[in-house]
């Protein structure tokens, strides 16, 4: 899941300052789960902006709110075409993808980001999320006992642990577990310690051509069909 956090209110206020009619657009998938831009957060932000307006009186806006199931699919965006026709800007509480999808679908309209998209992660407990994947496109979790050194080691080293590990913690952050120690302990449990002995050559990050595209449908040559 993509994890994000809502931007501070004053940043959002500055962003929308020049637009009178603003649609606050929530996203019903990842942003809902990570408490950044679901229906509740949309409504909360809406209320907060209205309080700012009525108490401090800076700027007169008219807000609408709507939460789509997902902003990253163009079909969902069709649902708000009529609404968007009446507004001066869309404040998207979707992740960075959502903001861009809105911008792409409605080219004539400013699409403003309401959240800071942070990472891909998992839930630790209610209201706490941890980063787990860097989307490097070359997964080696098989060799590292299901623990990703790219995201969980602060240095992202592929052959650890480094000399900076002390009492199982990282030298960069005393509260953070050393990812490579975790890898070692888990490999020991799995009786696969020999994987530690292997040497992983340095990754060539230049091989990732951005932006990436994945095509899962298979192209079929129409001429090859059997009658």
């Amino acid at each position, binding site marked *: 899941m993509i994890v994000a956090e809502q931007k501070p209110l004053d940043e959002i206020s500055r962003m929308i300052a020049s637009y009178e009619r603003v649609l606050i657009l929530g996203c019903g998938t990842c942003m809902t789960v990570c408490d950044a831009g679901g229906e509740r957060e949309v*409504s909360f932000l809406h209320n*907060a902006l209205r309080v700012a307006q009525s108490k401090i009186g800076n700027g007169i806006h008219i807000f609408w709110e709507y939460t789509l199931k997902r902003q990253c699919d163009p079909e969902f965006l069709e649902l708000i075409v009529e609404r968007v026709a009446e507004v001066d800007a869309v404040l998207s509480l979707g992740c960075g993808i959502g903001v861009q999808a809105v911008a792409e679908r409605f080219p004539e309209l400013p699409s403003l980001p309401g959240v800071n998209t942070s990472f891909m992660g998992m839930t630790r407990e209610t209201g706490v999320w941890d980063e787990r994947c860097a989307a490097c496109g070359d997964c080696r979790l098989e060799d590292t006992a299901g623990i990703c050194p790219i995201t969980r080691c602060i240095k992202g080293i592929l052959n650890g642990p480094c000399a900076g590990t002390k009492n199982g913690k990282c030298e960069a952050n005393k509260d953070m577990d050393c990812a490579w120690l975790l890898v070692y302990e888990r490999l020991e449990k799995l009786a696969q310690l020999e994987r530690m002995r292997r040497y992983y050559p340095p990754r060539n990050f230049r091989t990732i051509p951005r932006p990436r595209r994945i095509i899962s449908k298979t192209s079929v040559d129409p001429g090859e069909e059997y009658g």
Partner: protein
Amino acid sequence: MDSLLTDIRQNYPANRTQRFLADHSLVPTCQTACPLHMEIREYVDLVAQGKIVESLQVIRSGNPFPSICAYVCTHPCEDACRRDQVDKPVAIRALKRFALEFGGDRLIQAEAETSHIEKVAIVGSGPAGLACAYYLRKFGYPVTIFEAHSELGGMLRVGIPQYRLPREVIDTEVQRLTRMGVEIRTNTPVVSLDLLFDIGYKAIFITIGAHQSLRMRIDGEESPGVIDGATFLREINLGLRPSPGERCAVIGGGNVAFDAARTALRLGAREVRILYRRSRVEMPAGPEEVEQALEEGVEIVFLVAPIKIKREKGRLSVTCIRMELGDPDAGGRCQPVPIEGSEFNEEFDTLITAIGQAPQTPGGFGVRLGRGSTIQVEPGTLATNRPGVFAGGDAVTGPATVVEALAAGRLAASRIDDYLQHRYPLVVKETRESLTGDLLPETVEMVRRIGRVEPPILASEERSKDFEPVELVYDWETATNEARRCLRCGTGAEILSQDRCATCLTCLRICPYHVPYLDAGSTVQIPIDQCQACGTCVAECPAKVIVLRKPHDRRRVTEELEHILKTAAGSKLKPLIVGFCCQYGLFGTGTLASLWRGARAGVWIVPVLCVATVEAEHLLRALEIGAEGVFVAGCGDGCARENTASWIRQRVEKVRKILVQIGLQPERLQTFVSGTLSEDPAQGMDNFIEQVGGLYLASVMMQEVKS
């Protein structure tokens, strides 16, 4: 100001709005168990909120004679109460009595207009007859009640002793019926139904009760000094004062036996002994009645039955035999078996038999009789074999309870209405589902234990002297606290539409009762039979898809805030302070209840089901509509739920952070949780109001300076 009023929210599809407005609560077990299907959960909840008059309205709408039920109902609702699985059932009957006494039931007038010409005769004026008359009058029929005795009430009058049901209560209800225009003919035994048809009645309801005591069929039963329970009670209740002598025996274990025993005690018997042929477990009398009788000094001897009575020298020599319990019969009760050679003799002055009663239907009625000389009827329509003749109450069921008779009377009234209007019987179907199932042990463990408080009763030495009512009524505080014990079964949270649920599992993680679960299809389910309706998940759900099942609970806060906006926010005399307070406890009915609805200038209270249901948006909305300060006040240790305050503290903190960003002082938002307050809550509130007043003044001055 205009922009404040238009609070445009998400535009939902029409079907969602409809679902949002509908009542999705389930019928609780107490309501299902009640023969009258009274809305018990609703009126108990209103008592808990201290809304006694509203509570009385709900009670009156479901029961023609609630004052009678408040004294003598056998409360099947309490037997079905799910609170019993936690500690003890809610004292529903006593709460009804409280609502009637404190809500001013005596002042309520019933009215009816005649809109039909078909006259209906009601034979017998017991609870079934009175209820039937009440409803037929409401439907607009001219009704006549024929009563053989000199006063109305049937068993209520001649069977139930005064110390359990004061006669003023029956008199008040009868007067109400008279005012509604019911014609009453006392001292008029009906012997023939043909005559009634001849003089113009179009339909007849027979409710003659079961006044004929069953006989023991033993030697000497006819001796002077032996009397049956029904006759004994009837004589006393119609004003006679028979003397039971010094030593008195009562045969039987039902309510009549206990009524007779306690009455004999009040008439001056020094020693009253109940002889029952089975053991305590099988005894059909209500447990309170047994308890009170024992306190008053009635002695109960189990597993004993009389076999012979002989009158000698003005006293009765009763030969008894001891019993042992044999195999259970078809009804599940163990059959008593006499023990050979265990006979013994006892001397008594009086012997009262109370082993059961049966109806005595005059042959002239021409209705078909069934088992135990009860009148045979069609169960759904109460129609007898004669057209236009209906029957109900004890005459049909054999001796039963007041509330069952009232239900029969109500059913008869609507069926007689159908009959007279030549309608196919209309069956009103309950559209809501009934709640079934027990609480899971995990849920029970998390529900806070609060002991049941019984209403006060007269001291046993006081009450055995005369016929004053034994049970007293709750005081205000005890009643509201007792009513708060209700678990509000069937009103809990639901996921309004699964397709909007993001399956984030927040509800599952935060539920204090561990109720929501993930089913095999990866869908979150909130089982309604376990949900305790605290509303924590409703306020936390990031998709805002969880709602409470009762529409009133859902819309309450928004509506109250709109109300404040329209009435209070316009006045600028005092800074407006909005408080979200638990509708129960300290702020609902306790010492701070005086703050209710602007009673104190500037302070407006929004009552909430539980502070855990107050959403962060609500706090902001209150500020937006013009509040200078907002507080949330919960009950802390006095709360019926565990640890709800921590959730509202988190939300308050979240809003405070936003306030700082907006440029407002975070002190404008306060949480009060009683029990954790070191000072008097009223004092804490005063300080807060003063502080907000200061902030308001400062902000006004800043505005002046700016301009």
